[in-house]
């Protein structure tokens, strides 16, 4: 296994010194695609913020062997559309940490912005007003901003939230495509496990109510015992059109395994 970019070592995560979830052991290395799944309010974003260093761990340790460039895509609703920024200006913000204070963006930065916009397929919207874009276009603009940082680690918080199924699929395909030919490691938070199953290679289940934190390769996390720990009931995994769907069941899934369940 390659050297980790970032890791949480036996960490407790929470706010103002109060832990909401403990025993978090998580490592992200180059080339990883980790999906963080759990119910709304389950602590996924808290784990992500702690991993990114914006929230200190309540206990344990955040380990970063060396400084890394981070790209971050927040929940879309957190970015206020009232600000009169053009798409290009928003994406250029991804370059701000690289520039540091007192330096203005140059030609190379603008080139990186256009490249990032091209990668997410909205280069033609460079001159548009961010606040006037559709939800899916805004999401692509925010992903472009994260890519403009030329990140080693790309973190996304609910990137498909509020999207119709077509836009969600397009976003997931876009994310999967980012790693073709050696892109950044990706950590994606989602309350919808189906979003994650389409693209992630490893998955973490997070639910503060149940004190649950469990992480492993996708195949391992799709085993009935792992899924039951997340959903608190039997589940069945259904394959359709090359995609996986998790169906929580009302009664014990005895015999379901023989009908395509796992």
């Amino acid at each position: 296994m390659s050297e980790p970019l970032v890791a949480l070592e036996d960490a407790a995560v929470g706010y103002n010194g109060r832990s909401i979830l403990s025993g978090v052991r998580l490592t992200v290395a180059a080339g990883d695609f980790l999906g963080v799944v759990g119910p709304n309010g389950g602590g996924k974003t808290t784990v992500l913020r702690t991993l990114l260093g914006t929230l200190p761990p309540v206990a344990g340790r955040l380990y970063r062997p060396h400084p890394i460039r981070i790209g971050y895509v927040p929940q879309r609703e957190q970015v206020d559309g009232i600000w009169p920024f053009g798409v290009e200006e928003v994406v250029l913000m991804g370059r701000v940490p690289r520039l540091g204070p007192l330096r203005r963006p140059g030609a190379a930065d603008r080139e990186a912005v256009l490249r990032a916009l091209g990668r997410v397929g909205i280069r033609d919207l460079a001159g548009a007003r961010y606040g006037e874009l559709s939800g899916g276009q805004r999401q692509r603009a925010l992903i472009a901003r994260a890519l403009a940082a030329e990140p080693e680690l790309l973190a996304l918080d609910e990137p498909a939230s509020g999207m119709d199924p077509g836009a969600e699929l397009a976003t997931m395909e876009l994310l999967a495509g980012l790693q073709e030919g050696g892109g950044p490691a990706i950590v994606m938070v989602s309350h919808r496990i189906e979003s994650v199953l389409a693209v992630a290679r490893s998955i973490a289940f997070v639910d503060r109510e149940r004190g649950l934190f469990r992480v492993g390769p996708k195949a391992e996390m799709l085993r009935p015992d792992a899924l039951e720990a997340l959903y608190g009931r039997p589940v069945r995994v259904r394959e359709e059109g090359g995609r996986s769907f998790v169906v929580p069941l009302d009664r014990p899934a005895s015999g379901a395994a023989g009908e395509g369940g796992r």
Partner: protein
Amino acid sequence: MTSLAGFLEAREIWEIPLAASIVSGALLGALGVYVVLRRTVFVSAALTQLSTLGLVATLLVEEALHVEAEHLSEQLAVAMAFSVVGALLLGAFRPRRVPAEATVGAAWVVASALVVLGASRLVHAAHDLGGIVFGNAVAVPVADLVAIAVVAAVATGVHLLFAKELAFASFDPETAGALGLRVRLWDAVLFLTLGIAIPPTARALGALPVFAFLTLPATAALLLRAGFRTAFALAAAFGIVAAAGGYVVSWFWETPTGATMVALAALLAVPGAAWRFARG
């Protein structure tokens, strides 16, 4: 109504107050873009009242100590201390467990009440209170104009040098923090510029015009669909027009200066509002 000839002859009376009004209008108008976009309009109202409270507190101490002459620099220093501390507490380091509206509203109403209570104890300076609160701008000493110009230069310099950090930290603090920006530091810098801008302008123009200049010119610019950078220039221009225009109109029509400035600033927002309304 005063004649134009009379106005020009009285140049020595109005040139300093008019200059102070123009610089204040430009400075507050531009800063107002952040005030409006960050949805912190009432923070600026509370800061204006805190600054006024600082002035009243200094006047009270001067009277208690039987200080005959006014000490403008001390008054300004105390007002600035009140405003800067308020800016940091209400803006940059606001306690997250209490709703923003509650802390800002409490600061505004308590500061307002203390201004009234403090003013009721003033003997000699009580007549100044109307001007301090509602706007006067008739008699502005050169020292005040210098203070306003220095503050405007500092604030402009800070905003030009750190424009991208201030914008990023304000627009999307979570991402800015994740990418390594020190969001609290940049928030503090932003609110410090607001905190130092309010006291000298409030003493020259009054609390009401200052609050108006921090909201109306920026609103007018944003209603016209100005881009982020253009909005600063446009809001500063609207601030200048409202301040200078309001001053001149009040001179000729013999209306209260501060209120006239506010009315003109509000009028400047009408075209943008009408255009938005027409577009649906």
